[in-house]
């Protein structure tokens, strides 16, 4: 019997899928602070560590700022380390997100996408994680609970190959608190995929170095150069590891997912669980003979410029649907997609739609409306609001 046949099939909420991913990754230090809709991740991990199901130290800190600080430090002291948060918590961590990158701490963090206050709102929106775009973290967005579990495992593998912190992102409630069938792989197989963690510059008492020491202008820039190179490397590593993952676990992921795109003139671009809604709507549109498909962005940092160009070049029109907003400009996936397409051959006009902020529903009909609106329009616009009352 092959190892993979020992998998357990179960039904899990997204947050528990995270916890099982963390367990399978044999994380050694965990620190997290309660915030809806992340809390059940830490509760589950607290259980697992309390019963010994997972051999790890769980540090019950007094803030998210401390949660991330703890795991950066433990990661550089040689332990595989994990934290999870959302929204306000992620915003509070901001300083340390830069720190994690600069210190080359390959911690993995799950962020459950939740809207930022005020007004208080616990529902899904991507602005929290996207606002951390320039902190140097890898960011991987997810569409299903299985993908969440898989990506949690993958994230450690990738992070630890390039020594960069990695954020795994899932939607509040739509994934975090919704049950879906999930395959939990046998530990031995995950162990084969993910070797024990080692960091070449971890604290070493036989070779006492200063980690994170101040650097004058004559050195600092090279550190930044190295981080950028690591991001470029991360793109290759992402491809390699998702290939290997597909071979070993039978599920194939890529930087972007292509759905009904072979002959598509029109493409809807988006990330996260809304992609499922978009696929459903596109399938209906296809029945009406519309030549439309979906490109789901999975890897946001490093941004897969080549793949985005390959998929979007030569199409008639592209609509990017953002469940997020960079005030004063546009949706963030929209601006990233546009920037990637600048200089590409056969660049289509790209339309920017903003929808579903603060967890407002994006229904199949909304997607169909957006598609029809794009088809009608001549000139692209940066922000076309969908579903706002004005």
């Amino acid at each position, binding site marked *: 019997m092959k190892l993979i046949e020992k998998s357990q099939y179960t039904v899990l909420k997204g947050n528990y899928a995270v916890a099982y991913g963390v367990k399978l990754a044999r994380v050694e230090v965990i620190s997290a602070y309660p915030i809806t809709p992340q809390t059940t991740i830490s509760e589950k991990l607290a259980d697992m560590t309390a019963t010994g199901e997972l051999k790890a130290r769980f540090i019950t800190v007094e803030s998210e700022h*401390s949660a991330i600080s703890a795991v950066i430090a433990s990661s550089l002291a040689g332990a595989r380390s994990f934290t999870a948060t959302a929204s306000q918590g992620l915003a509070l961590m901001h300083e340390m997100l830069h720190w994690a990158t600069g210190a080359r701490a390959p911690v993995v963090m799950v962020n459950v996408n939740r809207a930022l206050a005020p007004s208080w709102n616990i529902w899904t929106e991507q602005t929290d994680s996207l606002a951390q775009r320039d902190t140097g973290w890898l960011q991987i967005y997810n569409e299903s609970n299985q993908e969440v579990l898989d990506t949690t495992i993958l994230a450690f593998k990738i992070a630890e190959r390039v020594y960069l912190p990695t954020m795994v992102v899932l939607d509040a409630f739509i994934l975090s608190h919704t049950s879906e069938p999930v395959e939990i792989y046998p530990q031995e197989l995950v162990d084969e995929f993910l070797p024990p963690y080692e960091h070449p510059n971890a604290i070493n*008492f036989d070779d006492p170095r*200063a980690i994170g020491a101040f650097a004058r202008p004559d050195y600092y820039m090279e550190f930044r150069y190295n981080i950028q190179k690591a991001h470029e490397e991360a793109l290759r590593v992402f491809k390699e590891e998702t290939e290997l993952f597909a071979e070993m676990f039978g599920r194939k992921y890529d930087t972007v997912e292509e759905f009904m795109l072979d002959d598509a003139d029109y493409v809807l671009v988006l990330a996260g669980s809304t992609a499922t809604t978009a696929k459903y709507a596109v399938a209906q549109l296809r029945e009406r003979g519309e030549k439309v498909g979906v490109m789901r962005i999975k890897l946001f940092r490093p941004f897969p410029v080549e793949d985005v160009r390959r998929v979007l070049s030569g199409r008639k029109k592209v609509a990017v649907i953002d469940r997020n907003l960079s005030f004063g400009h546009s949706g963030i996936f929209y601006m990233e997609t546009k920037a990637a397409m600048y200089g590409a051959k056969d660049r289509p006009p790209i339309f920017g739609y903003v929808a579903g902020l603060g967890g407002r529903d994006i229904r199949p009909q909304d997607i169909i409306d957006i598609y029809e609106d794009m088809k009608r329009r001549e000139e692209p616009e940066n922000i076309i609001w969908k579903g706002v009352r004005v």
Partner: protein
Amino acid sequence: MSWAWVEVKPNENDLMHPGHLACQGCGATIAARLALKVFGKNAVFVIPASCWSVIDGAWPQHALQIPVFHTAFETAAIAATGIRAALDMKGRHDVHVVAWAGDGGTFDIGLQALSGAAERNENIIYITYDNEAYMNTGIQRSSSTPLGAWTTTTPDERPEDRPKKNMMEILAAHRVPYAATASIAYPDDFIRKLKKATQIKGFRFIHVFSPCPPGWKMASNLSVRVARMAVETKVFPLYEIEDGEVYTITHWPRGLPVEEYFKLQGRFKPVLKDPERLAYVQRYIETQWERLVRLHEASHGYLPEEARATIRSAI
């Protein structure tokens, strides 16, 4: 003009090598050198933003012969906690994880993480070297800045009008197994406390008084003398608190007038010129001292003979 070169060879027994970047007479460096004599090579220093983020040296050099982990300003206690957790997972129970933070990083911005770590009784040693202001950023007040002191944000026209925050009481309120004050002018006392700390498990806190010549407006050869005067004037008493309950004064001061301490430093010039204010400061010091003596007496049931001389009136 001629140059004189002095070749400084590191002392074999010293884990702090020459070539560090502190000012002459820096109390914080003396404190670290003493501490390392106790910890030896099996310690890691966790250093938040402070003078000490500079003192150890610019990459790729560093003066300490132990691993140093630099971290953000407010995170000394939690970074040390994270390192402890990792080392425990790796079975390295033989090493000390030492947070080494300034007063700003301890009394102010780092207080939250410190409180968390203290309350959870994390197995780390937290040492704050106290120079009574934000020195690294150019001498701004912190909540450790004492009554009457000048800093760049409490200028002579409006010197510090609040007493120094009592960190030891805050730690005692967390019921940590060990908290102690120490001074670079009393190395035996400091070293004894460090040794005691290494033999205890759980959260250990040492508050070491560390004069700063530029920040205190004094000559760099005065650091030890000034530190001694702070103790002998009862401005900075040497004591320890066990389990948040048992108070022990470890050195009975001579009880000199506070002026003797103030007049060595430029930062107290405005108070020295203001007799009313000076009297107020002296009264405040006496009350604090008497309070401490009462706590010592309550803990031990009696007072040693030398205690009597240090108190204004009989208790």
